[in-house]
């Protein structure tokens, strides 16, 4: 679990290791060091609070990309009673970078669609690093249309570095696929919610993100471009990603201040990878709550609100 330790976490891990050692020492029963252990644990607690409440935006990006962070299928496993995956866009193939299917959450039937990253090299390649081709977006839209036809609400889970920039993706119309989703999602006649669970990478993320409510996990990010990409263009140096991350304002708090998102879901201290069940249960609660809220709104009204929700985003001066 602790195989991946960020630099900023090292003092915490060192302290935790020391506490562990002392516990082992105390287990012999030869010396009583329980006071010392208590003191150290208190210190560790304080250090954790200090470190994690003062993370800069680039450190948050690291957490959003943590290899042990729960992915779409990890959430689906924890929040649904049952899940049936649906494959393929009916046009070209099945894109494994997006998972889509029908499920129930607390007996409420709905459609779930999310970007899917893979853990480890082999699975990452299988999932194409969570970077979809056009057929992924077209599969997502097909399942959304299916949900609309049968009156099922839709939940999308967003977690991608971006849409795949490759030859096939361009040949098969990456831009058209994304544009089509933005267009079609905005008038789906069922409630739709998006939860950014990790990386909200640009248009590739937004293609699942035109929704009545936008929710972000505490350590997720949402950005027009990766900090590395921004740094290499604007600062001509990808190593200045930390600077770019600050400038781009990509955290849930930033997006709340810019009045783009509706809610931030709490994660365990240090990030979702510390406790998958805890964060999944928070996600589940939030989804149920938002669906209850949306259920009460007349669908024609909801669609107009959805179009206006995005219509209201922007900062400009007139004359």
């Amino acid at each position: 679990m602790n195989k991946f330790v960020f630099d900023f976490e090292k003092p915490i891990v060192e302290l935790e290791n020391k506490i562990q050692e002392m516990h082992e020492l105390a287990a012999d029963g030869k010396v009583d060091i329980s006071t010392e252990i208590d003191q150290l644990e208190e210190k560790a607690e304080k250090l954790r609070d200090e470190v994690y409440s003062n993370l800069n935006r680039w450190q948050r990006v690291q957490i959003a990309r943590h290899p042990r962070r729960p992915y779409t299928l990890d959430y689906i496993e924890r929040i649904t009673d049952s899940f049936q995956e649906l494959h393929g866009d009916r046009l070209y193939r099945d894109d494994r970078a997006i998972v889509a299917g029908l499920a129930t959450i607390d007996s409420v039937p709905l459609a779930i669609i999310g970007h899917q990253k893979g853990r480890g090299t082999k699975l990452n390649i299988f999932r194409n690093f969570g970077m979809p081709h056009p057929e992924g977006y077209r599969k997502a839209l097909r399942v959304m249309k299916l949900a609309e036809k049968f009156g099922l609400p839709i939940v999308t889970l967003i977690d991608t570095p971006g849409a795949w920039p490759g030859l096939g993706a361009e040949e098969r119309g990456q831009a058209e696929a994304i544009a089509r989703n933005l267009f079609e999602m905005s008038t789906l006649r069922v409630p739709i919610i998006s939860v950014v669970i990790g990386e909200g990478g640009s248009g590739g993320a937004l293609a699942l993100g035109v929704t009545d409510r936008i929710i972000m996990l505490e350590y997720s990010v949402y950005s027009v471009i990766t900090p590395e990409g921004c740094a290499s263009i604007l600062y001509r140096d990808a190593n200045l990603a930390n600077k770019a991350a600050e400038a781009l304002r990509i955290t849930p708090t930033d997006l709340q201040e810019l009045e783009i998102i509706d809610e931030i879901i709490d994660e365990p201290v240090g990030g979702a990878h510390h406790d998958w069940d805890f964060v999944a249960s928070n996600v589940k609660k939030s989804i149920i709550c938002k669906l209850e809220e949306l259920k009460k709104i007349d669908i024609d009204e909801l669609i107009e609100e959805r179009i206006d929700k995005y219509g209201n985003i922007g900062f400009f001066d007139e004359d």
Partner: protein
Amino acid sequence: MANWFKRTSDNLEGSKKRELPEGLWVNCKSCEAVLYAKKLERNYYICPECGHHMRLSSESYITLLTDEGTWKPFEEGMKSQDPLDFRDSKKYTDRIAASMKKTGRNEAVQVGEANLDGHEIVLAVMDFSFLGGSVGSVVGEKISRAIDRAIQKKRSLIIISCSGGMRMQEGVISLMQMAKTSARLTRLAKEKLPFISVLTDPTTGGTTASYSMLGDLNLAEPEALIGFAGPRVIKQTIGQDLPEGFQRSEFLVDHGFIDQVVPRLELKQRIAEFLLLLTAKSPSFKSVSSSSEKEGGSTSED
């Protein structure tokens, strides 16, 4: 999606060169012919030797496409704010100011009402010389208001795109302009008003992945670079050179994403022809579409 900013800003210099003082000779990048700048300008920046289409200013597109004296711009005074207080090597506000000074315009798109061969239209023309035609709050808002105006006045909408994508300096706010404009277009579609999208060199990133690809008809100028990811990024990803003609207009026609490649000087006539067809409204067929409308539109039948 804003990745192509760098590449496009290289091209920016090209367009700047072409605007330099009179009497200057210009090299055609395609056939290397040496061309007299004034003559090139009169020819709407199409190389008389090889037909290569160079970048054209929004003013020139307006002259090219609208009937004389009919252009009535709106929202000309709208200006960017700096919501993120963004600075890289320069402050965003300085970049905006410099672009305003250079172009004499407030933003990267002009919108207005006009007549095109007698057809009443709302026209939006993007301008690459303003921060690479990048889309931030103002461009998103002006495009959205152009859509609203078309609905309000029951006019057809024509958008001429020329853009490197979303504007990084407005972060996720610019990203959301993709959703904003695309969502707004559904209202135009609901009114069954035509939207003709014209893609010019270059149209990439989030611009392509939103309104530019959503025309009832998508037309493109010859050999325009059109795509989502920029060639440089794709090349990096696949680690090899890109095939000849990749992501050019003709390639997009071949792959089914553009209806026609239309040479610049034929654009006006072609658009007029399409508008005539799309707004003909033969009475006997019109009733068919309005009865299916009552079913509630975009459900299973679509």
